[in-house]
């Protein structure tokens, strides 16, 4: 198939690129745009490491063609914090809770959880575990990830109450 020109925004910035129709969004983000924070763990849509936001919805970048993102807004882990010294509250909670070890799966977990916490500001542990069940982590045993989500949710509710 012939190459296509696509235009999309990634983390608020607009990009126009010419691309093969078969190019995966994960490869497009990583190789064409250099946004290597999105990781590729299985390339068959199970592990969730490549999760990104497409118009605010968590999707698997390895099951999405770059051309499908034409005209849409993509969010990646690089969009959560511009600097390691200025972490997003969810990232801060992962840090404090030791919610990562090798860290390879972590960007996918974060991007899964961003819309989840928007929709579920006060989740139960069962709801958190259900939300995490589409992302595989081989290092942590999930316990500290669950703790991180609880911590992030609690702080967020506190911020909402005090109007921060």
């Amino acid at each position, binding site marked *: 198939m012939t190459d296509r020109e696509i235009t999309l925004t990634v983390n608020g910035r607009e990009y126009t690129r010419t691309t*093969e129709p*078969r*190019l995966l969004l994960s490869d497009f983000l*990583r*190789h064409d745009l*250099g*946004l*290597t*924070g*999105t*990781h*590729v*763990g*299985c*390339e*068959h849509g*199970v*592990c969730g*490491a490549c999760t990104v936001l497409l118009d605010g919805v968590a999707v698997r970048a390895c099951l999405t063609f770059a051309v499908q993102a034409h005209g849409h807004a993509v969010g*990646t*882990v*690089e969009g*959560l*914090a511009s*600097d*390691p*010294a200025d*972490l997003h509250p969810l*990232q801060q909670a*992962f*840090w*404090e809770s*030791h919610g*990562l*070890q*090798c*860290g*390879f*799966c*972590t*960007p996918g977990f*974060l991007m899964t959880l961003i819309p989840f916490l928007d929709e579920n500001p006060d989740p139960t542990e069962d709801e*958190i*575990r*259900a939300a*995490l*069940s*589409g*992302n*595989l*982590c*081989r*290092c*942590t*045993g*999930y*316990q*500290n*990830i*669950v703790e991180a989500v609880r911590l992030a949710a609690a702080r967020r509710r506190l911020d909402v109450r005090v109007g921060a």
Partner: protein
Amino acid sequence: MNPPMFGARHKRNEDPRLLTGQAQFVDDVRLPDALHVAFKRSDYAHARLLNVEVAAARAMPGVVAVYTAADLGEFWQPSPLLVPPPPTQHIVFNGRTAGQLARDKVRFVGEPVVMIVATSRYVAEDAAELVEIDYAPLPAVVDLEAALDPGAPLVHEDVGSNMAAHVIQRKGDYTAAQAEAAVTIRRRFLYDRGTAAPMEGRGVVAQWDALARHLTVWDSTQAPIPIRNGLARMLGLSERQVRVVAPFVGGGFGPKIMMFYPEETLVPWAAMQLNRPVKWIEDRLENFVAMTHERGQVHDSEIALTADGLILGVKDVFLHDTGAYDPYGLTVPLNTQCTLLGPYVIPHYYTEFKAVFTNKTIVTPYRGAGRQHGVFVIERLLDLAARELGLDVAEIRRRNLIPPDAFPYNNGIIFQDFTTLTYDSGNYAPVLDKTLAMIGWDRFEQEEGPRLRAGGQKVGIGLVMYVEGTGIGPYEGARIQIEPSGKVTVVTGVGTQGQGHYTVFAQIAAEVLGVALADVFVSTGDTGQFNWGTGTFASRGAVVAGSAVHEAALLVRAKAIKLAAEALETDEANVELVGGYAQVRGVATARVSLAELAGRANPLRGAVRPGTEPGLEATAYFGPPMGATAMGAHAMIVAVDPETYNLKIHKYVAVHDCGRVINPLLVEGQVQGGIAQGIGNAFYEQLIYDESGQLLNASFMDYLLPTAGDVPHIDIGHEETPSPLNPLGVKGAGEAGAIPVGPLFAQALEYALADTGIEICEIPLSPSRLWELVEAARAAGVGPANP
């Protein structure tokens, strides 16, 4: 006062980069003009290679090079034998390692046959589709017992059989001991294959600088320094011409230390041949078949006991599946032999194994590295003996524990590090007591269990114990420098795969040097930074490299104090290091900063006294005489759904003694993660091969890793029995969690399903396998068992 370092729950220095997507993994190395590799791998488990036709692939636009074994010329060579057998008598060992690309014959599905280098991975995979290989299929060697039958097809014809090794070890006289036994239990135990499945597969990027004549290789390896040394040798370069970097590695768990994978030598070689950067990133399908596996063993075991339940002896004869080649020697089955002894007094022990070549993926250590199997055998034998003798499972274990005054405890057989297996220190009964208390054993037995069972729930409780040989030699090293900025760098050769080395090594150095944790920069896994070392395996990073960091920090501290004493005009004994300063003890006004001292230690002008080394820098090495023995106990309460045989783990407790704890936050994370892998191994994960040697479930849709819905909350307790073998008193913690989970599941599920009378002598289990066992027991007319 300096803030506490050792033993404090410091969050990790490395996390902000990982959390923001700014940590570099191998696939994140992006080099201009880079080429990409795909491999055409064998579709057959066992076949002669009649013809490999690559003309169409070579002709495809975008393809730069296509290599078969014949194209490698003199570079084609069998991989070195990574771990030779122990230098003891009466060991049969047939070492066979693979060349980089198969020639003449393929021996497992996934063995690389053709390497394609192209302008993109997409093009390289397209070209791989055009490769035509003419195979003459041979019958596959799959079953371990059938493999040793006379007349079985041979994986390596020149060996003359499929026996890769035969090892017998003895302690005492089992036969005589068994003759005195009141009770002897005999069973066959099965432990099937699984895979480590790190979330990041393997990957190699290589760049040859033809003008500088220097090769840089980024490799997701656990052992960058041995990789560097071997690459230099194979490529005809000086070790100083090769730099291997293991950047952030997305999980290792053992298989990323298999030197050498074919891809690890071919990618750097191709980069030199083509004078362009070359990258290969393993995809998940490749990872399932081409990254090493673990765990296939068949045990015929027996235990002899007195009427009081004291162990007289154990006999264990097993087959170990080593796969198509055995580059890692006997590490895994030796671990099995040694770890079977557990925390128990076993006066007489006969252990014999045969390692067997099969037409399956190579077996090398994966987290636990054979220890699981041994623990499964001894723990199951004790459970069966307890039932026979009418003893409680905790009581039979308690009666047999090695007493605290018996250490160091010599087990009289050879361990994987070729030393005599000796437990350095231990105090086991408190671990058992704490585990029973934390799980609520008595409450479950007296109230909770009967109440839940009366309500129709199939609920059970279990308790298992284990020891783990950790922290083996030979050595690691570290170099520490206080820089003119006052900040500290710690450099070591071990690689890191998520254990938190950037933090624990910083804690060790910060404590000795009196600086803030954030002011310690740690470099690991870069041979350009440190020249000597072996790697990250056998739960040894904190023990061996950590001790080297400690020794180096002490040397730097002495240098700093010597200079400070001169500057402050006081005795060295009066100087302390606090908050980045050297000060007269207790007098915060009389001080000089470490930054200032670092400057004075490296003057640009003036005379330096003879014998003085520049800088506040020191290098130290540490090699323990033998491994440090960690131990622990796990317990759980589990309910089985009578319709689906799915599980609900109500409570899981792990009590762990890994000596002094450097960072409890990180140790707990290691234990939790290990248990999650153990749960996968016990109940979800099994590599299924058919009789032709095809792996039937090589995807995450078919091979089930545990999810957040499967792994319960885990309560962790610590006991601390320091190791006398290193200055920190630490023992390894990385593998412990994964080791005893199989027998714990078996025991607790037998309890929960006691009304069916099933006996569980195999791992992995699954809901359908549990159902089969229950149906088989029903058909055989087995009655209910006493839980």
